[in-house]
């Protein structure tokens, strides 16, 4: 036994395996090319064939799938060619021998054998051509890196007033950092620290019963439910994105879609795509006030109908509608009337409605009342209405990883629980959450008033700055963000320019979110999170002003140059 393993590293063995390896690459390459040929032939046949209207949808679908397959095959070919090319040029076998402690194995290991003259691909591209991942693994990685590389840069270079004064300030991630002192204090109280045997053992995957009971009580009280909510309708997972991912799995098949009014929080696009492969179809709202648009970005049933119609025309299977209330990034709150209309629209078309009420306790304008969908006397379609809430925003503890689903549909609740063991929360954390939610006295008398006051103050500070800069913005009532219009700093007003401006903020170590990330149709919008401590917020706003000043100067120079040229 040991003799056999001893003979393994002998060079001749390696050479042989190398030859085999190369051979297999070429065989694979041939295979892929053959596939490519087949697919292209089919593709052309499909493109040329005309079918009846009924077939139209399937026709488009087939074409789209073939196109995707074509690009996938091309991608595979590139991968193979690359690995083949490298092994051809490299005398040493590239499949890695033991590399532990070996400095060469740092970045982009799949390119380890690549000859020097070939330019190194960037992280993101490198991820894209790896041989070790599945195609979907590559997609997941690429999607993640393309969307989160700046966030990761921030994680590595966070601002700290003493240790890293030149680090990134993040006004792009929706986190409430205003009440961390209160939360830290509360979490250190003695009732929080409990280690019971049951908490260390395998849990009920829907969430510990004590926590589900508490969540039901909590939502009954704060959502003003007409009747006590049932703990059996609660499923507790490690974050709202997990809830969303599980819902997308059980409500949709791959390639099916949800409607979402945009601008819309981009994180959900993620949750539906990474695992579940569910698409989000935007219902584009507009900033301009017109006869039908009585206020900016108004959602109307007409727009929903239109979007649904168009999506169906394009062959999309729409399974539901996703609403965020209070809205992110607009900060608007749906009136009970409009909410009812959206729900009736959904009922009319047998659509599920997922309502994300994660900012429900972050309404800081006291003159405005938030109406939870759970407060309605009767829901148009109880079995297709699913409510999501979590502690991340309202309690500023995104690091806790807690999200809850409330649905009257027992079937949905039960199937989402099947995902419980992939999205479970530590028993110890469940205990803490239960204690937190149970203490309504502290929440009502200490936490919420303070939180609202601080949100209001921070909002006031930021909006005063924006007014001084004459920057139009949205949101005067809820959430952690303002939705700002920087169109006047873009010339021309395009998404490319928006991206450049975003980069410029980054260069000044300021992270914002641009409208594109919220699937906004109009370029030039940004989301600015104001729920940060005042000293940091002040510095951030200084950087913000600097960037815009710089941008303005550039614009003037550019306009002058244009004028000169003319």
């Amino acid at each position, binding site marked *: 036994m040991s003799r056999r*393993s001893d003979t393994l590293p002998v060079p001749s063995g390696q050479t042989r395996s190398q030859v085999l390896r190369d051979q297999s690459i070429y065989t694979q390459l041939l295979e892929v090319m053959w596939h490519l040929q087949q697919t292209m032939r089919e593709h052309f046949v499909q493109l040329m064939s005309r079918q009846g209207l009924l077939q139209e949808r399937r026709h488009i679908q087939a074409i789209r*799938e073939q*196109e*995707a397959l074509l*690009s*996938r095959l091309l*991608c595979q070919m590139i991968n193979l060619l690359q690995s083949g090319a490298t092994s051809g040029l490299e005398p040493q076998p590239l*499949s*890695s021998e*033991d590399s*532990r402690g070996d400095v060469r*194995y740092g970045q982009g290991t*799949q390119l380890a054998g690549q000859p020097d003259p070939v330019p190194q691909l960037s992280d993101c591209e490198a991820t894209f051509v790896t041989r*070790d*991942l*599945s*195609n*979907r693994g590559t*997609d997941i990685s*690429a*999607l993640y890196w*393309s969307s989160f590389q700046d966030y990761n840069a921030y994680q590595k270079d966070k601002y700290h007033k003493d240790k890293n004064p030149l680090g990134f300030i993040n006004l792009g991630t929706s*986190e409430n950092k205003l009440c961390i002192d209160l*939360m830290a204090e509360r*979490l250190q109280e003695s009732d*929080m620290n409990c*280690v019971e*045997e049951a*908490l*260390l*053992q*395998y849990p009920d995957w829907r969430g510990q019963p004590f926590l589900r009971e508490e969540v039901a009580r909590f939502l009954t009280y704060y959502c003003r439910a007409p009747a006590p909510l049932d703990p059996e309708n609660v499923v507790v997972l*490690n974050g709202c994105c*997990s809830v969303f991912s599980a819902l997308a799995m*059980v*409500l949709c098949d*791959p*390639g099916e879609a949800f409607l979402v009014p945009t601008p819309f929080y*981009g994180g959900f696009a*993620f949750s539906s795509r*990474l695992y579940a*492969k569910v698409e989000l179809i935007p219902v584009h709202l507009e900033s301009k006030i017109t006869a039908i648009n009585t206020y900016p970005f108004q959602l109307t049933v007409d727009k929903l109908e239109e979007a649904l119609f168009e999506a169906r025309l394009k062959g999309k299977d729409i*399974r539901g509608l996703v609403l965020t209330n209070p809205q992110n990034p607009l900060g608007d709150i749906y009136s009970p009337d409009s909410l009812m209309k959206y729900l009736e629209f959904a009922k009319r078309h047998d659509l599920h409605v997922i309502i994300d009420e994660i900012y429900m306790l972050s309404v800081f304008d006291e003159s405005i009342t938030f109406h939870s969908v759970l407060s309605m006397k009767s829901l148009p379609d109880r079995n297709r209405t699913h409510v999501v809430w979590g502690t991340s925003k309202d309690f*500023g503890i995104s*690091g*806790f990883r807690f999200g809850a689903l409330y649905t009257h549909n027992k*079937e*949905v609740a039960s199937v989402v629980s*099947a*995902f419980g063991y*992939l999205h*479970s*929360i*530590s*028993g*110890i*954390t469940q205990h*803490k959450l239960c204690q937190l939610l149970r203490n309504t006295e502290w929440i009502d008398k200490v936490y919420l008033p303070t939180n609202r006051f601080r949100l209001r103050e921070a909002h006031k500070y930021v909006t005063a700055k924006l007014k001084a800069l004459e920057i139009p913005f949205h949101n005067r009532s809820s959430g952690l963000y303002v939705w700002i219009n920087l169109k006047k700093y873009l010339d021309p007003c395009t998404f490319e320019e928006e991206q450049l401006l975003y980069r410029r903020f980054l260069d000044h170590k300021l992270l914002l979110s*641009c409208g*594109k990330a919220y699937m906004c149709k109009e370029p030039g919008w940004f989301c600015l999170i104001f729920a940060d401590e005042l000293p940091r917020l002040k510095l951030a706003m200084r950087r913000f002003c600097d960037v815009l000043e710089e941008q303005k100067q550039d614009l003037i120079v550019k306009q002058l140059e244009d004028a000169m040229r003319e």
Partner: protein
Amino acid sequence: MFALPQKNFRAPTTCLGPTCTQDMDRSHGDDLEGECSRKLDQKLPGVGDPVMLSSDTSYLSSRGRMIKWFWDLAEEGYRTYHMDEYDEDKNPSGIINLGTSENKLCFDLLSRRLSQSDMQWVEPSLLQYPDWRGHLFLREEVAKFLTFYCKSPVPLRPENVVVLNGGASLFSALATVLCEVGEAFLIPTPYYGAITQHVCLYGNVRLAYVYLDSEVTGLDTRPFQLTVEKLETALREAYSEGVRVKGLILINPQNPLGDVYSTEELQEYLVFAKRHKLHVIVDEVYMLSVFEESVGYHSVLSLERLPDPQRTHVMWATSKDFGMSGLRFATLYTENKDVATAVASLCRYHGLSGLVQYQMAQLLRDRDWINQVYLPENHARLKAAHTYVSEELRALGIPFLSRGAGFFIWVDLRKYLPKGTFEEEMLLWRRFLDNKVLLSFGKAFECKEPGWFRFVFSDQAHRLRLGMQRVRQVLTGKSQVAEDPHPSQTQKPSDQCSSAELLKLCFSPGPPSPIKQN
């Protein structure tokens, strides 16, 4: 920002589509769920068939309906067990669970440690969005911990560590990023059966079995020995059936065999994998639960040279070794940056609380407590419990396997099955349950031979004694039943259904389930 791979979004290879149903159906064709579905089918036409199922429930997607179908089986089992759970005072005649692999021997030590003041730390960064790979302080601690306890020849690196909320999540994420829909991992059987669901639920990845048997012949020096020849055969068979195999899953120390692989064996398996460009996932979740000193356990991370370090991925968790399955903490160690990054990309869905991450770092850092208090005591208690159960078995003249690792003994009850069928195995299991002791039967581990059972011994002495007493009652009264089977219990279709119901009890996808958890 979200634009990049959109063009690939609808690629058929990543779509479950309507084929999902077929795939799942096919992939489960020869395993238990499939069998169960066939049996149910005979009794209740339409219920077992996912396609027919789709017509009567209108709220779910077709994959949702499939998942529901599996989960309902699990739910039912879960309820049945939990309705009658043993409690010393409240329900002394309730069911004793020797089926779930949990270490209930050291709660006193753990609760004391976790209640110390250093565990109660709260700081802002712990409450905010984390680095999705896990907080750096924890990854550093994990790297040091694994370097030490896995006896790594070189220091392991924090950037190769990804932290998730449990081994199930890690299997799910790895399956998704390493395999396409319908592709497979090789796994030697008997194995911890819940992996089937872990890799299937999101990933739609299947398992290709490397069947091992108990007979010692020819090249095999001990029962259920894994050899490269068997791996080669299984791989060939999978290919001939058109199944694309992407990797190999090894559990070391093994569950349910309670055995460990020698370094030479490990090396051979790894070389085999390298030859076929297979990834190897090595699940070392019981690595510190080797309580017999004579057993020389070697982590794959202790090897001087890994044949294919870029395709070797190691899993570890605190669930077993620290008896905290409810804490939800697991870690991946891989030198493959792409794999680490891809798994980390899914960590948004598998994150754990910052406060728990802090606690874990404190725990793993406390080498003095681990080495001087926890491990010696844990091993002593495991050994005592193991001794008790194995002596009971010897007294009954029952053969078993267990070399001193893990929480379980793999028990050979074949002599109690006159015909040696899985139906009889099921009936015997049912007898145990009727006598209020829950065990896991071999079929749940895809064991090829009917008659093997897994006994979990890592429980408090009073429960263990009572459990073994109940086992003894069944086995000593057994012969009579075996000689005189009620015809109705094995023949009629209605009773086939009842054995399907039994299956429901066993093949629940996750832990609250009485049996199928690790």
